């Protein structure tokens, strides 16, 4: 089981603070919405993921445990 950062796209309003808090995990698309790295979290990116999750005013991010990224 691996940990992954996920986004509920129905909650996200494209505020953008997550990409600042987690630059190794999140890139913004041309419309200003986050594209999230699908690979499992590492020790380094786990910290970034938690910061981004706490910072999101829409509470759109979550970290879950699962077998594969798909």
């Amino acid at each position, binding site marked *: 089981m691996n940990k992954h950062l996920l986004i509920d*796209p*129905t*909650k*996200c309003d*494209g505020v953008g603070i997550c990409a600042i808090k987690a630059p190794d995990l999140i890139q913004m*698309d*041309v419309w200003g*919405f986050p594209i999230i790295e699908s690979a499992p979290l590492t020790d380094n990116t786990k910290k970034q993921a938690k910061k981004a999750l706490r910072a999101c005013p829409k509470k759109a991010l979550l970290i879950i445990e699962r077998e594969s990224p798909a």
Partner: protein
Amino acid sequence: MTLTLLPANEIRYDVGNSLFPTGSRRFDLTEFEARFGSSIPLENNADLEALLSRIEQAGVHGRGGAHFPSAVKIRSAILAGAGGTVIANAAEGEPSAAKDAALWQTNPHLVLRGLAAVGALTQAKSLGVWVHEDSYSTRSSMAGAFKERAAAEIDRLPLRAYLAPHRYVSGEASAIINAVQGGSAVPKFFPTKSRAWGEGNAPVLVFNSETLAHIGLLASSLNWAPLESTLVTLLTLNGRYVREVSSDTTFAELLEPSDPAEHVLLGGYGGQWVNWQDIAHSRVHEASLAGQGLSLGAGIVAPLPNSHCGLIETSRIVEWMASQSAQQCGPCIFGLQWLAEDIQALAAGGRKVIGALDRLNDRLPQLMKRGACSHPDGVVRMTNTALEVFASEISLHRKNKCSASSTQPFFPTESEIHAV
């Protein structure tokens, strides 16, 4: 505007085969039971396990587009626990689709038998049918069948209809789960993408109507060796035609020689454009097509008449699909609108073509797997294949030329249906 579309109550279909044994009217319960017999006993664990084995051996899979093996879905639902709701999805979203309507308007008892069987297998507490509120002919046939089943006291589980708003994505499984659990009929984000049951205390299992018809055949006492067949909605200039196609039929045999086409849209508005020569000798059979990287999707086969331009038609489809977004996810709200504009630029032709093409190559990959449902993914897939298949047409459009001889729209969109 001249319309080539038949209204839903004029769908043509083959008769005399396993799913549509009757003429252009609904099989009532008496006629249905004379033809298919009664339901096989589903009293004890041995009965249920026997039916599940038959579903597994017959290779029944989801006919809504995902083609997931039904026995696996049912087994995972059994593991998830009893007390859920099983839903027959009768809300095909595309204006070009017609197989749900054809099934429900002619042989509703077969679908309902399949629904009741899945309810028994999964120890559900209730059954439901999800249907668009403005599918009047389908609803009328359904109501007749419900009454006959109630009078004959067939269903042990409560059965009800759920009315869905007429929007493409309201037939999407997560939207149905959302609505049946008390939310609104828009797609919902499920973090684990569980294929079967929704989350929470009232799990919901959604099955495509054709899938349930196949399960209904296996649950019938007057059954013959299960025919491996697929319902195909054939879109032609003369209207939609729902056909039951056996798995050894090729596309060349399916299409009439009077419908010459170089390009075919396979799987509908979220499907794939293919060159006719690449599928002419392929079988109309999901597993065979998968070997070519193709899929029947929800069973829609649309040979583009040679009189029509693939870019203009793709542009109309993308514009309509963008209008069908539930407006929940940023990539869908903004991305599909942009996509519609750039495809429109390709269709219009001239000097904007090159810029639009560059943006499409850059941005299309950014839209994949970004929404709560797969609505944008389907549009991206269809657009990607259009760019490949219509490459020479794009070159023509750059020079302000177009191969089409007709300016009449070919693919139906919702507004045109209501304009009839």
